[in-house]
């Protein structure tokens, strides 16, 4: 009788075959509130879930980081938890997102490493006790579309009013626009999908310009 391999064995095997979706291809943009209906209408036409209409979501996202402030090399591990406020029995989602790589001009999208997993609701306490610090949190409400492997979200970001136990009360929109994200989770090196994303983004112009956003440059502009 054959013996069982450990879970780690199968994980390393999966890594070797490169089937773990550990990369995220991402394009971002925004659209003003008054034009969002037009964009939604356009997306309804372009995306797969036509007859059921767009899927709405109302999520609470908490951004944690695990850090050591040693003198020579500070170590930071960012972790995010997302939970659905409208579907109470859905699992929580834990996510690690790495530094975005912009690449050169020929690369159509931002690529960042990403590990995404479902988990039980104990994750918040788990992270707190693990030594993580809650950096910030927000509410994201909006619509989700899909087109093949691509995911399109159109969402509005709300500031929380400091009440973690009642996350949907007293929220305040942070801007007069919606955040538009086009993303795909895929194993390493599937760059063909990035090209598909570029073509799809092209079809949403000029309503919304989906681009590679360079956060470092944004940071410099602010200061």
């Amino acid at each position, binding site marked *: 009788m054959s013996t069982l391999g450990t*879970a780690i064995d199968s994980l390393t095997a999966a890594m070797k075959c490169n089937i773990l979706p550990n990369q995220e291809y991402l394009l971002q943009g925004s659209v003003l509130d008054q034009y969002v209906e037009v964009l939604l209408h356009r997306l309804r036409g372009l995306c797969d879930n036509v007859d059921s209409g767009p899927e709405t979501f109302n999520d609470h996202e908490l951004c944690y980081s*695990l850090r*050591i402030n040693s003198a020579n090399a500070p*170590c930071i591990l960012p972790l995010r938890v997302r939970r659905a406020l409208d579907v109470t029995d859905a699992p929580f989602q834990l996510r690690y997102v790495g530094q975005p790589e912009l690449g050169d001009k020929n690369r159509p999208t931002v690529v960042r490493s990403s*590990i995404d997993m479902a988990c039980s609701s104990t994750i918040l306490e*788990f992270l707190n006790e693990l*030594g993580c610090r809650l950096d910030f949190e927000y509410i994201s409400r909006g619509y989700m579309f899909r087109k093949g492997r691509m995911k399109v979200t159109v969402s509005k970001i709300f500031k929380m009013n400091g009440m973690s136990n009642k996350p949907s009360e007293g929220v305040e929109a942070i801007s007069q626009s919606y955040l538009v994200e086009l993303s795909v989770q895929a194993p390493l090196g599937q760059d063909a999908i990035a090209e598909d994303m570029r073509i799809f983004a092209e079809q949403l112009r000029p309503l919304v310009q989906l681009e590679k956003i360079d956060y470092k440059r944004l940071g410099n502009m602010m200061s």
Partner: protein
Amino acid sequence: MGVTILAQFPVENKTGPQIIEVLSKRICALGATPQGQFLVDCETFTSVPALGHQRTVHVLHNSEQPATVFALLETGTKTIPLVTDGLFDLLIMKMISFYQSKKHTKTESKGPRFEIGDFSVKLGTVNITSNFKGILVEVEYKPCVVPAMCWDLIMEFMQGFLGSSGPTAPPAFLQNRMQEIYSPIDTIQQYLEHFTIFRKSTGPTMVMRPQQP
């Protein structure tokens, strides 16, 4: 997923394979059919000193729930369970500068699995970094989800084939939650309880023989 009870079986001057064979014969004589193998493994990570007071994360897998990873965080005052999916192993690798694998603590319990009526029985050989430590017998009564309701029934079953070595009281971990709905993490907590005892002990009370085919 039904209520599961885990019990240690005394070694008494026998080798692991010998005991497994004796128990397998007994359970088959009662009408059980072999149903493959099972494996529960556990790896332990401790926080680096720079992260403040020491915390321990145990990461466990159970072949009964192959897509799930269980993590138990011990802070010294409490234990926080987390149920998540296979990619958590990848995340724990990313945490290498915060949590490091404790040397010589890789523990596993593996062996044959049997089905008999609505029961499933697993005879596990416990190894810590491939040193034989003891035998754990797991019995699951699948139709029932509340431990208090079926404890007597499971105890009768276990005494039926383990004889006087069968348990006479519910495992310590379950005693406070006999009325709760049982879930897979409860099995994991029982395994961790036993693994911790095995890690503290200095091996089975017997001469070491070459183990494990």
